[in-house]
């Protein structure tokens, strides 16, 4: 349990030898104790991960906090949600929404096209999420950024949850995401409901949705 919320927008993390914390570069607000910060290059995920990040422009530079002490993290006044991972499934989050996570969690970059084929690629392009997202595996916790805070909605087998791609923040557990087009002739004539493109989540787990349709 390394992350403690100070308020809706700031979290603190306790850093100890062997318990490093990775965070978005520049997101440190203050620290106490003997803590050092070192840049982390996109080494995780192997060659594919590096190439993936380079291709996707998903170059959110991370840094590692080492030593022993307490670090405060926050970013641009955005709301922070702490998500605990119990190892039952990965957390999938857009790289620029990831504020900080335990170094014990393994981060990989996933090409959406390799999951859902061309539909996955289309989903990334259409929803503006990019073609690559970050997945965190293992036990630990992660701090995720959102505009206006998040709500958690469960996803149960047989009862899919549908979300607006712009409001989507992250999903955890054994969840598959697929784009679903709900467009009709009304959208073509400018009489659409504004909900033509939706993200359908199936499986079992949780989806985190923010109270806004703004990107970061």
């Amino acid at each position: 349990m390394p992350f403690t919320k100070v308020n809706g927008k700031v979290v603190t993390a306790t850093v100890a030898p062997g318990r490093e914390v990775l965070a978005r570069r520049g997101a440190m607000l203050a620290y106490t104790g003997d803590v050092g910060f070192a840049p982390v290059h996109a080494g995780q995920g192997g060659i594919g991960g590096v190439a993936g990040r380079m291709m996707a422009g998903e170059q959110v530079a991370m840094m590692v906090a080492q030593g022993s002490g307490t670090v405060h993290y926050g970013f641009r006044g955005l709301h922070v949600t702490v998500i605990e991972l119990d190892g039952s499934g990965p957390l999938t989050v857009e790289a620029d929404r990831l504020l900080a996570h335990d170094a014990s969690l393994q981060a990989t970059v996933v090409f959406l096209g390799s999951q859902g084929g061309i539909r996955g690629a289309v989903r990334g392009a259409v929803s503006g999420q990019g073609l690559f997202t970050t997945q965190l595996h293992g036990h630990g916790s992660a701090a995720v950024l959102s505009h206006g805070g998040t709500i958690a909605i469960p996803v149960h087998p047989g009862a899919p949850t549908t979300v607006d791609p712009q409001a989507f923040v992250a999903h955890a557990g054994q969840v598959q995401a697929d784009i679903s087009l709900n467009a009709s002739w009304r959208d073509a004539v400018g009489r659409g409901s504004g909900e033509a493109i939706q993200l359908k989540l199936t499986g079992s787990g949780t989806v985190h949705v923010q109270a806004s349709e703004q990107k970061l």
Partner: protein
Amino acid sequence: MQAFRTNGSRVLAIDLRGDAVRAATGSMIAYIGEVTFRHAGSGGGDGLLAGLKRRAAGESLPLMTCTGQGTVWFAKDAMEVTVVELAGDTLKVESEQLLALSDGLRTDVAFAGVRGVSSGQGLFTTTVTGHGAVALLSAGGPPIALEVSPQFPLVVDPDAFVASRGQLNQTFVTDVSWRNLIGESSGEAFSLRFDGHGVVYIQPEER
């Protein structure tokens, strides 16, 4: 009539059981179950006459009708959500501060006086009448409800105005002097004055 619940202070959740609810276009953030979203029409779902009035007034009310079975969550630009229950009375609301309204309610346009010129909100405001719940949006924090009584009239900034209810008479106050001409204005030249009995909701941020 649906029960409007808030999930946190910025998200509205509505359970649908085969009935319909109207919400601001594009404000759905998630849903469970079988729900369809349809443009409510140029009158905001209140027929041709309201649509024509709205078009003539230049007041736009982009609403969508959500029908089906399930739970729908709505939110807009991380603004705070407040649910107001109406029991046959009328609520005047800025159309861009309206998030959702239950199906027992009717919307119409009302002439709002000259204030529209200054606030850029159009000369007309949206009125909501009937029995049901309305979800209002307020930017910058929860809305502040200010009571108006005959002894205590209220003056508000048009850019902070969200909604009003009750027996209120709305007038437009100008405070333009020679200072404005030489660029020495206080920034508060135009205000809205409310007289009568009622409640005015304002938001802690100016549009």
